[in-house]
């Protein structure tokens, strides 16, 4: 179910944001890892919000509030 990391896509994304920046050989794998962990944290937070709302489905408002927190955390 889990698919391969879109390595070229990740490179293109970073290139689009920072054209002058280069990426090392396997650095995009770590980028993918960090992205996975970011989604993981986002999902957990959204899940927690949904539970708090006694909802069995993750709704956009849960996601939005989760995103606010996690994006702040992931700023580095």
């Amino acid at each position: 179910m889990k698919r391969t990391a879109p390595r070229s896509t990740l490179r293109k994304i970073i290139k689009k944001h920072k054209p002058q920046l280069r990426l090392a050989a396997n650095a995009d794998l770590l980028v993918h890892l960090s992205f996975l962990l970011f989604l993981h944290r986002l999902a957990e937070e959204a899940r927690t919000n949904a539970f708090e709302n006694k909802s069995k489905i993750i709704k956009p408002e849960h996601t939005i509030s989760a995103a606010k927190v996690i994006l702040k955390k992931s700023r580095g």
Partner: protein
Amino acid sequence: MASRGGGTPAASGASGPAELQLPQGPRGLSPPPPPPPRNYADHNAPRRRRNYPPHTAPRPLPALARVSREEAGGGNRWAVTGPAMADRRPRARPGLRRSGHNARAVAQTGSSVENKSKSVRSTLAKQGLGVFPDLRNGTPRLMLKRVMQNQPQVSPLAPQISNHEDTKEAHSEVPSQRVSSMGELQLPDVAPEDTSTTVFNMKKKRRKFSISEFERAAESRLPQYQAQSALDSTVMTRSLRMSVGSLLAPDTVEKRGLLRRPKTRRAVDMQAFEGRVEQNLLKSKGQNDLVDSQSASVIRTSMLTSDAEMMMNSTELFVQPLLDEESQNKLSALEPQLSDSKTSAQRSPISDADQEEARLEGLVSSVSTNQERTQRYSKSTGLDDEHVDRMSHVSPETPAKQGEEKQDHSQQSNPVAKISVTEEEVVCTAERGASAGHSEHLEKKLAEKAELQITAGHASRGETEVAPSAGKEVEEGSTGAHSSPRAEHEITRGIGAESLGRPSHAFSSFEKPEVTPVDEIDEQGDELQDQAMMLNLDSSVGEPAEDEAEQPESQEVSMKTPTFVRAPPHKLLLSAKPAKASAPSSPLKLLQPKTVPKRLRTSQKKPREPQVPRSLIKAIFRHFAKMPVTRDAFQIVEKCSERYFKQLSDDLEAYSHHAGRKTVEAADLEVLMRRQGLVTDKMPLRVLIERHLPLEYRRLLIPVAVSGNKVIPSK
């Protein structure tokens, strides 16, 4: 004794019974004559299987079944006395006759009396039941009898009225119910009569009394009842009806209550709907295909015309209150737009788009999103979708009105015909449709006929101007010329009769804006100002404002300036018939937009931003969330991921720059994750890699030592 005893049995066993007496003669004692040989034939005969009707109670265990069968056979004969009778009696009363099922059920309680009558019952079972093996248990009448007996005992007096009412209610549903009840009871057609009589016999006093009384009351009150009574002449049906009524009374009452319950529908909230429409547009922003835009624009033009028609409709008889709020807002927003259109000198797509964007922003929030896109096509598609959504929303509101308008249109095509024709050609984009709606809107507002001719003059002037500009616009136009003839038709349809005069003026003003980019900004500017003024004056008209508001949104997308966009639709609206003049030129213009957009599309499509595939994000998020996620939540997750990548790239650049490098290394990534709080002293990066990445990637990232003093991957 013993020997003799031993001998005699042996002797007797060897010889027949006759010989037994011989040796015992001298003794004087004769052994008791052996009992007559018993006939076990019936006992050993294969048990006959009963044909129980399918709906009857499940068959008991074979032993019990046999016992029950026998008991049932015997129950008819004997008054069964015994410990089990107490519980059996209430059921056995009807079962005394022939309710084999009751007897069977009772038998399951384990009465022991049946053992006596086994033989008799077995014979009984064999005897008469060749034809109707279930006379005791399984005939429909018996079943019905059972049903009747087991019905809740309702007092005949009190529920008379309720029964009557119930039957009244049930009358409408009686046929179906009766059918269903009949089906439930599985009564063959022949049986009912018998069962009815049986029913009456069973409960003589109560049932008869209630039925007769009920019928009397019913017939006295209900004509239906009598009508139905003609149909339901049989006693059975009547009894059934009563039973049905009493049985189904609560259901029917409930059902009727359900049926009568007014359906509460939430009134459609225009604001909410518009908001949702905008959201949809946001989602559909991604579509940048020219084809899509073209189709969308085509759709838009069609929708626009309907919108225009709607606008026209509203002015004719009454202004729709729904549109008032929005329209007024949009109307006010439109005025600045009109003035802006005046001033826009450039016909370049981007400038037009920008202008349009500026205008639209004021009107619609979604427009702001369009602004982000430099590409007109994307904007146009978004606007197209939005407009389509709006149109689709609006058009159903005024289906009837459109019919009226169509009739009016035929009358009005005339004066501006040629102008509109050329305009049609020029207007390629869906904005044209929007502007058409716009123009229609303006038409309503502006002065009437006198200006028609003036506008005709203007239109002709604008025509010529438009022609050169048309070529340019064609390049930019997202929609092909094919949309223009359609728009033309639709627009003509949408034109209201009375508003023609106004439109003419509006057209002229619209035309001017269109041509403004090309030439003669001043003239058009004046007209635009006039239009704006007119718009201000006519701000009371709700619909036009809404249409304008909608149109600007759609217009934004197209490359043309809003004025330009608006102008052609006006012309299109006005001239349906005299397409001849423009006919020859239109094909030429049709061709041009077709070729140009292709080039633009291919060139513009490529820099489509790279995105992490949506499906991947969905899969990952769903896996981590372990809960169902709504589609809207996924949209938000996508946006978050985009923002995350932006943040990430900034951070990585900072780290690598801090390290004096131009390349992002793995160390930078680790620093980033450490700062994010993912990598801690307790949780090294290696563990995270091992946990979340598949083997192939792990192998690449984590150095593994192998034999031979080798490390993979080699550094």
